[in-house]
Each structure stands twice: as structure tokens, then as C-alpha cells.
């Protein structure tokens, strides 16, 4: 039915923070059920791209279609309802909320159009991240870094969003937790979620992604599929210094 409409289709996206022009015409398409990774150096505009999708930058121009719906002119609070969940780099766990309140905070999206992936139940999320169940009543920011990251990702899985924007979820975490997150991404993919990741940790992202985009100076400079990864390594080394 809606299978051939991309989950996310960005055309000629420009975004500003105040006077500074950060994104210079980003073009990006993510098909349903794909895992796509945005690579690039710090400051290349990857986080800004995610924030611009959510309407969290200053002025925006261009086109952002989420599950087929144009959202460029919408206020931030309406955008999520087109079926998108955002996990910011800073995790944004609320200190005045308990772990459980944090998990239950994002409202279940009513208008999640084309939502063929129903949100996970609380029990499913606790099954995936048992630590969170044990720490239900703890203050959100008293959790460890890894637990906070699980919470930040877990809470957007409840809402029925089928397009997930995950910004640097592996950053600064112990290897065992990074592995748990990698298993989670594979599981989400199996369940039909569409995932866009910003990753610095190339070794985390490389085996997970179907396709890669490379950003530099606020624009996409390279795009290739996972199968081309080996052939592209020299270019990547130059672009990323990995």
C-alpha cells in the first residue's frame, strides 16, 4: 500500500541557527525498513540535519516529507505525530522525572500516519532493557550513562513512531552496552522500523547500516550502500580520517 513511499525524503534542505547558515541543501532519502547512517566529521551538520527534521533549528527551507507528508512548515509539536521519534545526542533524560516517568513521557502518537509498526509495550521495553525495570523509581539522571541511553531510546519506541532518529547513541558507553544497542538496532530492523543514525563510532555503525551518507560543510558529499563499503574505504578515510 504505502510501501513505496519513503519514510523520509529530504530535498534541498537549508537550515539556520540565528544568522548562521548551517545546512546548505541536504538531499536524503530513507526507504521504509532501512537503517541509514550519517557519517561525517564533527560540525559537518549531521546533528543539525536531525534537529532540522524535528523543527528544532532556526529558520528552515526546502522540503522534508515524513511518511509522505510535507512537514517543513509545521511547528515542532506536530512533526512527531507523522510517525517520527527523536533521540537527541544529549539524551535529554529529565532529572525531575523518575525513570518510569521518563519512559512514559512521550505521548503515543495518534496521527502516526501509515504507522504499520505499532508501538512497543512497556513490558517489551523492559524485557529488552531489564536494568530499566529495576530502576523504575530512580530519578532519571541518577541512572548510569548506559541506562540513560537505553531509557532515551526506549521511550521513543512506545509511541508508535516507525521512523527513529538516533543521534550518537553509542557515544561514551562501555562495549557491552554498545553491543546491546547494536542488537537492539537489528531487532528494530527486523520489526520493520526505519532508523536514521548519526554515528562517530564507525565500527558500531558499519555492520548495522544498509546505506551510508557522508556529510561535509552542511551538505551530503557521498552516498553508498553497505555492499560498496569496502570499495569506499579510501574515500571515507580521507573524508572522515577514520
Amino acid at each position, binding site marked *: 500500500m504505502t510501501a513505496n513511499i519513503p519514510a523520509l525524503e529530504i530535498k534541498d534542505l537549508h537550515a539556520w541557527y540565528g544568522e548562521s547558515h548551517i545546512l546548505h541543501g541536504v538531499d536524503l532519502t530513507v526507504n521504509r525498513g532501512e537503517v541509514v547512517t550519517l557519517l561525517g566529521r564533527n560540525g559537518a551538520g549531521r546533528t543539525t540535519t536531525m534537529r532540522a527534521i524535528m523543527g528544532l533549528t532556526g529558520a528552515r527551507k526546502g522540503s522534508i516529507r515524513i511518511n509522505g507528508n510535507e512537514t517543513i512548515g509545521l*511547528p515542532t*509539536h506536530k*512533526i512527531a505525530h507523522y510517525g517520527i521519534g527523536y533521540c*537527541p545526542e544529549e539524551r535529554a533524560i529529565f532529572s525531575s522525572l523518575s525513570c518510569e516517568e521518563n519512559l512514559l513521557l*512521550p505521548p503515543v502518537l495518534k496521527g502516526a500516519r501509515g504507522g504499520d509498526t505499532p508501538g512497543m509495550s512497556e513490558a517489551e521495553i523492559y524485557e529488552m532493557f531489564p536494568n530499566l525495570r529495576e530502576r523504575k523509581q530512580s530519578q532519571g539522571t541518577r541512572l548510569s550513562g548506559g541506562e540513560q541511553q537505553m531509557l532515551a531510546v526506549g521511550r521513543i519506541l512506545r*509511541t508508535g513512531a516507525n521512523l527513529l532518529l538516533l543521534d550518537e547513541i553509542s557515544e561514551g558507553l562501555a562495549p557491552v552496552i554498545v553491543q546491546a544497542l547494536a542488537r537492539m538496532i537489528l531487532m528494530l530492523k527486523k520489526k520493520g522500523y526505519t532508523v536514521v543514525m548519526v554515528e562517530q563510532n564507525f565500527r558500531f555503525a558499519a555492520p548495522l547500516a544498509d546505506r551510508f551518507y557522508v556529510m561535509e560543510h552542511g551538505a551530503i558529499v557521498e552516498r553508498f550502500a553497505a555492499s560498496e563499503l569496502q570499495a569506499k574505504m579510501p574515500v571515507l578515510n580521507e573524508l572522515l580520517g577514520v
Partner: protein
Amino acid sequence: MNFDIGIPLPALLSQLLLGLVNGAFYAMLSLGLAVIFGLLNVINFAHGALFMLGAVLAWAGMEYAGLNYWIMLLVSPLVVGMIGVVIEKSMLRWIYKLDHIYGLLLTLGITLVIEGVMRSAYGVSGLPYSPPDALQGATDLGFMMLPNYRAWVVGASVVVCLATWFTIEKTKLGAYLRAGTENPKIVEAFGVNVPLMVTLTYGFGVALAAFAGVLAAPVIQVSPLMGQNLIIVVFAVVVIGGMGSIMGSIVTGLALGVIEGLTKVFYPQASATVVFFIMVIVLMLRPAGLFGKEK
């Protein structure tokens, strides 16, 4: 019966009650200020004027439309709440990104307009307003006479304050509010209509002030200046309690009312300054206030 301190117990208790009544007003007003500051980042100087407006509306309802106290106890906060919604949508909305001082100046300006209009309409001599029949008189508790209306004021405001506390700390709506206070942008990205929440929060905060105003109408003289006299002390209460905590502002409000009342008994000369004296000490020892979190 006399204590060693030489104050007759009934006199002490009646001052204590008077202190609690004032404390109840401090608590309701500082609670509203704290909730508004938390989400809007605006120091709402207009709070005193809207408290006054609540009381004047109660008087006007009786005077012009024959609406009694109980009706106005509902209508007045609703009307003032709606005025708050208009103020937020038409003016405050534009200054959130600016320094606090702009919010303070804007709301001070709004205060001057409201008070000026009321002053030219009603002058500055008080308007008479008596408590409803059901709450007139006093109850003999054996050891003191308890004026019914004052007991009602304390009871009603404690209930309202606790209900507000419960809503903010224990419900889903309150979780949105707390999260919005910390990081409104992310809450909005989750699909919560934060701008609407901000508008309604301001409306609720000032409705609380109007509710306090109606409660105050029979005990403080209804006058365009009644808010001015109170709001300065309320700001001191907010500074003492700290902005961070809802329960903190309730407890601080009541406690300072009582301390003020007791000062009237033991050292009347200091009763007008004791709150500010405490403020100075608290600021020296805990700059963020008794319940505030250091940022």
C-alpha cells in the same frame, strides 16, 4: 491562662491564625509565581495586580450583578485566567528568548496599567466586602474563639495548594510540566503542544492569584493597591523558598506568615521587616533559597 512569656494564650493563637491567613496568601501567590517562572522563565510582576483584580471582580460581581461570594470564587479566577491567556498569547510570548529583565519590565508595565485603570475607576479608599453569611461569626474552641472565615481561608488555600502540588508532582500532566520546565524543546519534539501548555500554565497561575484575591476580599480591604502591598512580601517569600520546588513555596509561604504573625506578638516593631531580614540571611547562607537547586 498565661505562659511564662507573658502573652495570653488566646492572643497568641489569634495572631498565629492571622499569620496563617497571611501565610495562605503568600503560599498561593508564590506557588503561582514559581509555576509560571518554571515554565515561562518570566518573573510575573503582574501577579499582585491580578490578585487585586480577582478581589475587585468579587466586589464588582456583588455590587453590579448581585453575584455572591461563592459564585465569584469560581467566576473571578476563570475571568482572570482568561485575561492571563490573552496576556500570554499577545505579549509574553514574544519575550521568552530575552533576558529575565524584559519579562519583569513587561509585567511591571501590565501591573501599572491594571492598577491605574482600577485606581481611576474606584479610587484608593477600600471597597467594603463582607464574608458570606455561612462563614460569618466565630466558633468557640474552648481555649479561643476561631473566626469562621479565617479558618475557611486557611483550609481552602491549603487544599488548593496541595491539589496543585499533587497535580504537578504525581500526574502525567504534571510530568509534562516538569519535563517542559527542564527542556521544553525536547518535550515538544515528542509531540506535546508545549506552547499551549505554556499559555494554560500562565492562565492557571494567575487564576490561582485571583482565587487568593477573592479569598482575601473579606479580610484585606479591597482596593486597587492591595496587590502592591502584598506582592513585595511574596517576592521575598519566593526568594527565601527558592524557585525550584512546589512544596517548598507552599511551606515557605505558610511558615513566613506564621513567623510574621508571631513577630507581631513578641516584637511588633519588626513585624514589617522580619520577612526581609530572613531573606537576607537565607541569601547569605543558601543563595538558591531553602528549597532551590543550585544551577
